[in-house]
């Protein structure tokens, strides 16, 4: 269900970059990696596209802590991961959301990234196995009858944004995103009868 994860690796050694890239590609086919040779180059990449994770060799921020913090504040949704292969001050390492070391095993890196991703999806995971709320069922019934968000909002006396939020939660809980898919779901769950469907 997740889309691609865009990752920047700030690292000048191509041996290390390609080694790490290979390990990451084994973890997930959904990772898309970009190499940057410096913090400035990474910053230019960040302006152009949305990235999810930036992996940094701390050497690149050692003398640049101020600009690193500025970039970090600017892109608060990004996870910043330190890539450690020599001794660094703990204070410097505390700037990261997490660190991996070049002596880590595949398994350690694997479990690090799955934890990193699960933090991010915590909300999704909590709700993914719950049944739909009464309000969500109301929204789903009207959706299945072919109503648009706006119509649903005025029928249920809620804002269009609330309808959108309900729809998002319905999709997370059921694993079904399209309206035509949700319609079949609603019929199977006996929330609407086939006769009441619009075509």
């Amino acid at each position, binding site marked *: 269900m997740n889309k691609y994860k865009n990752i920047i690796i700030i690292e000048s050694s191509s041996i290390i970059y390609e080694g790490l890239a290979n390990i990451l590609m084994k973890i997930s086919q959904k990772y898309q990696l970009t190499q940057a040779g410096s913090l400035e180059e990474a910053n230019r990449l960040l302006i152009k596209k949305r990235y999810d994770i930036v992996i940094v060799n701390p050497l690149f921020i050692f003398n640049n802590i101020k600009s690193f913090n500025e970039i970090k504040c600017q892109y608060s949704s990004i996870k910043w991961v330190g890539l450690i292969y020599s001794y660094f001050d703990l204070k410097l390492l505390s700037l990261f959301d997490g660190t991996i070391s070049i002596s880590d095993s595949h398994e350690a890196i694997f479990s690090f990234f799955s934890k990193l991703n699960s933090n991010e999806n915590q909300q999704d995971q909590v709700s993914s196995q719950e049944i739909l709320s009464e309000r969500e069922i109301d929204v789903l019934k009207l959706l299945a009858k072919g109503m648009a968000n706006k119509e649903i909002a005025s029928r249920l006396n809620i804002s269009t944004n609330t309808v959108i939020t309900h729809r998002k939660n319905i999709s997370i809980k059921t694993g*079904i*995103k399209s309206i*035509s898919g949700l319609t079949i779901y609603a019929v199977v*769950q006996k929330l609407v009868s086939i006769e009441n469907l619009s075509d």
Partner: protein
Amino acid sequence: MNQTVNFQLSSDIKLSDCITINPYLLLLLEHFDIGFPLHDKSIKIICDENHLNCELFLIFANLYNGHQYIPKTPLSYNDTQAIINYLKKSHNYYSEEIYPNILITINQMAELNNFKEMALVPKFFIKYFNEVIEHFDYENNVVFPYILELNEHIKAKTQNEKKSKYSVLEYKEHHNDIEEKLNDLKNLLIKYLPQKNDQSIRRKLLLLLSELEYDLNIHSKIEDFILIPLVAQMESRK
């Protein structure tokens, strides 16, 4: 099926060995017009015989194996022709082969399982199939000719006045829906639709859907991360 085959391909490996290890590469051969028998020839030799850029082949083949391969020499604008030929062939495989096969299987399933709600599934799929065809037609008839024309203009060092307002980035959003509805269908079949006489046909259907999903995922990676960036570079040259 979606398990990645754990080894990286390089130009000196025998292509026949690669296929034995990961049979999904068979589709890659077909889309690149590489025929049997392969004998004991290396990837490099087979690419040369087929006038194919070996680095391009290795990028694609490694995608099938779940690796990100960094080419020794970057792709050039002239590779767009080979990429487009590949994508067109793969469109053809989707629309002439796997989607029709899936539709046949869905109809068989709906016949065996006569629950009322089951009748909605073929309907859902036919509608979805039409959307997919529409998307492929758009790429075949609008996007690909635009790219090839752009390449011709760069080669001839002329300006492309006519369509300079169009940008390839516009079409990037298009194919997300294709994978989304496929996933919806899988979830409906696995989690929600009641079963009646249809266990084995539903298994066949789910395997077909997973096979399609695996290939579509690679297909959109080729478009998003190989073709579009290359064309964006071409556009910025103008």
